[in-house]
């Protein structure tokens, strides 16, 4: 049962307090997008064994959505940060690079 810190209220929340929101940093494609763009937005999800960026909601806490960088293989949590950003913060990127020298970046 994962332990993830909510960056909005600072609570170290148990997994049962959170609801998962799957992959983070998706770009929405609406009307006017090609079939390929829409398919990629809707269905093509990363499923890495290793570093992954995810959305979580502190559903039974402060109610805020936030983002987390986590290793899907070892369950190490590299950090959490607010959802209102376009890409992972630099300090978290640095931390991941230090812990996982082979990591190829979040894109």
């Amino acid at each position: 049962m994962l332990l993830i810190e909510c960056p909005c209220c600072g609570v170290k929340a148990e997994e049962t307090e959170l609801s998962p929101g799957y992959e983070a940093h998706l770009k929405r494609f609406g009307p006017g997008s090609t079939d390929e763009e829409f398919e990629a937005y809707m269905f093509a999800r990363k499923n890495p064994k290793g570093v992954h960026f995810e959305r979580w909601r502190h559903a039974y806490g402060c109610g805020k959505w936030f983002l987390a960088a986590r290793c899907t293989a070892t369950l190490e949590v590299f950090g959490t940060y607010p959802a209102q950003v376009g890409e992972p913060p630099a300090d978290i990127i640095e931390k991941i690079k230090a812990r996982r020298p082979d990591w190829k970046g979040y894109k």
Partner: protein
Amino acid sequence: MSTRLSKGGRLIDRSAALEFSFNGKRLKGYRGDTLAAALLANDQMLVGRSFKYHRPRGIVAAGPEEPNALVNLGSGGRLEPNQRTTVTELFDGLEAASQNHWPSLEFDVGVVNNYVSRFLPAGFYYKTFIHPRPFWKHVFEPIIRQSAGLGSAPKDRDADRYEQAYAFCDLLVVGGGIAGLQAALVAGRAGARVLLLEQAAHWGGRAPVDGDVIDGKPAGDWVDAAVAALEGMENVTLRARCMAAGVYDHGYVLADEKVADHTPGDGRPKHRLWRIRAGKILTATGAIERPLSFAGNDIPGVMLAASVRDYVVNWAVSPGDRTVVVTNNDDGYRTAIALREAGLAVPAIVDARANPAGDLVAKARSLGLRIEAGRGIAKVKGGKRVTSVAICLQAGEGAVIDEIACDAVAMSGGWSPVVHLWSHCGGKLTWDTANACFRPDPARPPLNHDGGAMVHVAGAANGAMKAAEALLDATAAAEAAVTALGMKPKKAKAPVAEAVAEGPMEAVWIMPQGASAELKAKMWLDYQNDVKVSDVQLAAREGYESVEHTKRYTTLGMATDQGKLSNINGLAVLAQALNEDIPQVGTTTFRPPYTPVTLGALAGEARGEIFQPLRRTPMHEWHERNGAYFEPVGLWRRPYCFPRAGETHEQAVHREVTNTRERLGLLDASTLGKIIVKGPDAGKFLDMLYTGVMSTLPVGKCRYGLMCNEQGFLSDDGVVARIDEETWLCHTTSGGADRIHGWMEDWLQCEWWDWQVYTANVTEQYAQVAVVGPNARKLLEKMGGMDVSKEALPFMQWADGRLGGFPVRVYRISFSGELSYEIAVPASHGAAFWAALHAAGAELGAMPYGTEALHVMRAEKGFIMIGDETDGTVIPQDLGLDWAISKKKEDFLGKRGQQRTFLASADRWKLVGFETLDGSVIPDGSYIVAPGVNANGQGKTQGRVTSTYYSPTLKRGIAMGLLHRGPERMGEVVEFNTVKGGTVKARVVNQVFFDKDGEKQNV
């Protein structure tokens, strides 16, 4: 025979005699006994039958690893099957019964399986499942069902209660032997919050039994002092009878505390399930002795050597008068010495090693014990009890050198560290060649959220088998764990255990090593599931190379003991058969729980009325008082109908519909979701959320809206009211409020976070009543306080005011097709308002109606219901709701999804109504059949029913459903299949069956 010795027994209190029964026989034991010890004291070695061959089974072990001695414990509401007698504490009045035999333990019919055992080889089930099929169904299955199965399932409600609790600590130490106690002392002195768990009722583990000496005194004295010291530390909690069942992600541990197993009915909870969150976990879980594989090693009287010692030292029970010890290591000699010191006969120590040497061997020699070095057991003789052993050369093929009369055999095949908790979350193992065992690999521990080691390990669980090593290991492990927690270990004098020089053990997987096939077919690996050396070798010959496959094929390690005794021996035999090294073959996966946890503990208090939280509307008690029949709607309980005396539910529903259509019905609609959306950008936001336009809705008006997910599928619907310039109130379905509120927040927080919008789910802040029927307006006028006329409050408008003194918001909306007002009051007024409406409405024919009448009336009007007409694959266009989808808006959630070719196509199943030709009701779930068959030879379909009811208004069956190009096929007759066979013919019609022009609601 096994019996109670006249002296000794460190755990029993001879002044406290207890009575208990086994298979109805009244027996005596002492306080401090386990049930197994008390049974042995009464010469009850035979305690059960094996699963497959129904062979006689005796007690093998003295701890939780016991595979054989399982009983039905208690009776009635306190019956528990498969309870291990070796960990069951004796209490006065305990009732136990043996399992898996018929008609009796002594004489068992199923034992014929033993004589046909060559027809029940490994993979028997797989082989007979495959062919010939009828043979399985008519021959094997009935026989196996009759004879298989452990224990009997309780039929009564559990008479006990269980509770759950949370605990938090810096360091969780699992295991209260000397390693665990020392680790807890080190961590406790460093100031860490320590929780120490021990599965047994007493502390100290094996050391006091093994005669270890610590700091110059008997180990028991050191244990007592350590426990006293720990109890004196405020930051340390000790919990005995508490088994750590599983280690989960990020330091989460489940532990099962057996609070009142030994004091049933004293009012305390039977078990307490602890949910522990630990900074670090230190496992000092010890080791389990392995059996040796020789022919007849399952005959009652053959026991693990250290367990024999436990019975003698802890409970003053002699398993036999003459015990032959067979071993491949020095530890077995401890048992021989303990037996001799208790005045019992040890006719021989059969040692598989050619040149045993060491302090214990020397001591045995000095006691004059006969040591048969380089020898093994060719065969154990006996039926329900050992009578003798035949000995042979270990290096040979089993030619008998000598036969020794005895009534017990103590075997030791070496020790396997208990690595379960280390492994649950991915800790890896390494092969220890010297001790022939797997132990935790310190380089590959399970990891915590910070990437550091989550579990540390100490003592025998880490392969440090001797007391002296274990104490040193525990000190080092605890210091490492405390340091990793950011604390500083205090300098203290570490306890020193007297070193005992032991000779090396020698791995023995088959005894004798060149045993014949006939002998191997009597060498048991898994006692409970009847898996033998020959079965594993057969699996290897048949191509099972993976240990996981072999496990499932042979059922090795799949019994209730989960292979605690059989695992390593089994995979060693497999490795030999595959001609590979043991580490290459590897182990099967260790999964929680370590020992079985009763379902009662997992359920805790969540049973009966408090199984799950219930949501009640403010009017719930009125419904209960007035005989409502409830149905669950999410966590809500809503009245399905209000049956009167002598009425069936169906009759009640028909009465409620008719009364509402002709006079006046009142519905508790409080569960309807209510979400306030407010802010400068609220209109823009709702235009994205709904398929229609909400920003243009004038203040004071209502509009029906649809919400879709991004794929375009319909997800929720409801009426939206514009409250003021910046505020909208969105009604959602009863089950959808929380989901839709979460959905709104998702988009506002993650996608359009610069939009100024605030949402609040106020579902429970308001009670809501639908006042429905021709007399609805009359009732509100009688209540008085505001103008509810057609002119003042037309259809699809709302108004604030007072009715009968209550502060109300009245929405003129209708889900029934009748003149209808939905009236919201603050929740605290709900019950009083509801009662006032009934009081005033009595003379107008007011009756409450339930959800089923609501469904029937909305179906008569052709209104869709989320979850009936939708199932996550239906778009609004399928339901003829194109009018509620804006064509002007550039974007809304689901718009792009609906543009996908297969959704935009006209070639889809679409909503229509159905009238059966004979007036009957189409069964729920029916499909509309189409000509021809598909690739699997199944009949084709062209649609399905989504809502089907008897209409008391039209006095016939009505239905809605999805039909391929349905709206183009009005008047056509189609056929619905039925579960019973045959079809029902129905005509395709418009889905609005009643009052097509809306004259009844527009008055």
